[in-house]
């Protein structure tokens, strides 16, 4: 009995919430609170509050449509319950069959970007050309200027909002901290030093 009562509540934000719902339905990419405020002709603070209201209305388990905060903005997506039905009708070309090389390249660009192919090759130890071309084609990375011409002027790359959206990240800062990764690096270091001592001895 709780739900229908809420829908006819006289919350003063209701009109604004309805406008925002409409904007999000029309949009094909996440909209930031600032963009929503401008389009709705209202102030950002009230938009944030209205988004809270909408988020409550459109949440997992309650609606087939779910509001999510992703890629620096707000967007509607299908609820997870409906994933199977959606999968029968729609493909996900951007993330299908991502190879290990592509994922490592993507990780490097996400953490160190904007960075160039030589930067990526230096870390991975192999050429990154095909992985970079593949990610470009999928729209997960994009060009972001060039290196200083004095060091060759290589094209630099960064990740796109599509990358954040597909991986469900609010922003790049939602990635785990680099310091928390590579836990076995210390172990490798110790083993290497052990070998080095043997050689000097």
């Amino acid at each position, binding site marked *: 009995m709780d739900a229908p009562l809420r829908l006819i509540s006289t919350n003063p934000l209701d009109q604004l919430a309805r406008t925002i719902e409409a904007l999000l339905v029309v949009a094909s*990419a996440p909209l930031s609170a600032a963009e929503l405020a401008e389009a709705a002709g209202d102030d950002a603070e009230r938009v944030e509050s209205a988004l809270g209201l909408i988020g409550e209305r459109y949440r997992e388990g309650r609606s087939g449509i779910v509001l999510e905060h992703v890629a620096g903005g707000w967007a509607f997506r299908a609820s997870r319950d409906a*994933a199977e039905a959606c999968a029968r009708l729609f493909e996900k070309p951007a993330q299908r069959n991502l190879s290990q090389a592509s994922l490592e390249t993507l990780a490097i660009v996400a953490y160190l970007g904007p960075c160039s192919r*030589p930067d990526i090759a230096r870390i991975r130890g192999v050429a990154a050309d095909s992985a970079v071309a593949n990610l470009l084609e999928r729209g997960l990375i994009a060009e972001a200027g060039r290196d200083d011409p004095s060091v060759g002027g290589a094209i630099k790359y960064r990740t796109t909002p599509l990358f954040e959206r597909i991986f469900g990240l609010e922003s790049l800062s939602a990635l785990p901290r680099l310091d928390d990764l590579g836990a076995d690096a210390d172990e490798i270091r110790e083993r290497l030093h052990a070998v080095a001592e043997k050689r000097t001895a």
Partner: protein
Amino acid sequence: MIVRELELDLDAFEGPFDLLLTLVLKDELDLRELDVAGIVLAFLERLAEHDQLDLEACGEFLVLISALLELKARGLFPDEAAELAELEPEEAAEELARRLAEYRRMKDAAQWLRDRLDGEGDRFFRLGPAPLAPKVEQPLAPQEPARLAEVLRLLAKEPAQVSLAHMALRFPPVSRFLERFRAVLRHRSRVDFEQEMSGLSRVEQAVAFLALLELRRNGEVAIEQAAPFAPIRISRTDVEREDSWTLRSA
């Protein structure tokens, strides 16, 4: 076949191989811009021209091209300049560990992305190009009709005729000077060009010179000049012919 004299025609360089090597060693040519495969192709083409395999040339070429490749590879990765082999074992271990740790972190990050992708596999959303934004209207400030009319009247005014007289070079007809030379030469068999032309404008002198060349072509006069910029002397070639010409042109 001499490898050092191999002629190359590449995007970044054109000339013999030994000059290329010299430029590279003097740092006057950026190896990153050099297409090493192009050099190999040029060598192979040259090699194919001979029936017998020139082993000595091949050996020399291999040594040179591999040195070039190594230089290029080092240029591409400036950090690698600190060769691990030149380091003390402790330092080498540290450097290796640093590189491995860097890669290790990225490999873990890739694994995190893989897990994330698997976890987010049941998120479906609409993707598409951004719709067109409406055009922003730029309203004009309120206008007074009288003021607008005034401005329009200014624009409608006939522009003043611009005189181009000073731009045109007026050339006198060549025929005038033809007649003049012929008239002068009727009385005198030799004429000095400069003397005859003194007091005329540059354009007139130029046209007079053209007339002179025309007369020379017809064989009516002979022209002599002892040295460049020396006085030009004109003389009648032969009296009979000149007569026939004057008769005809009269």
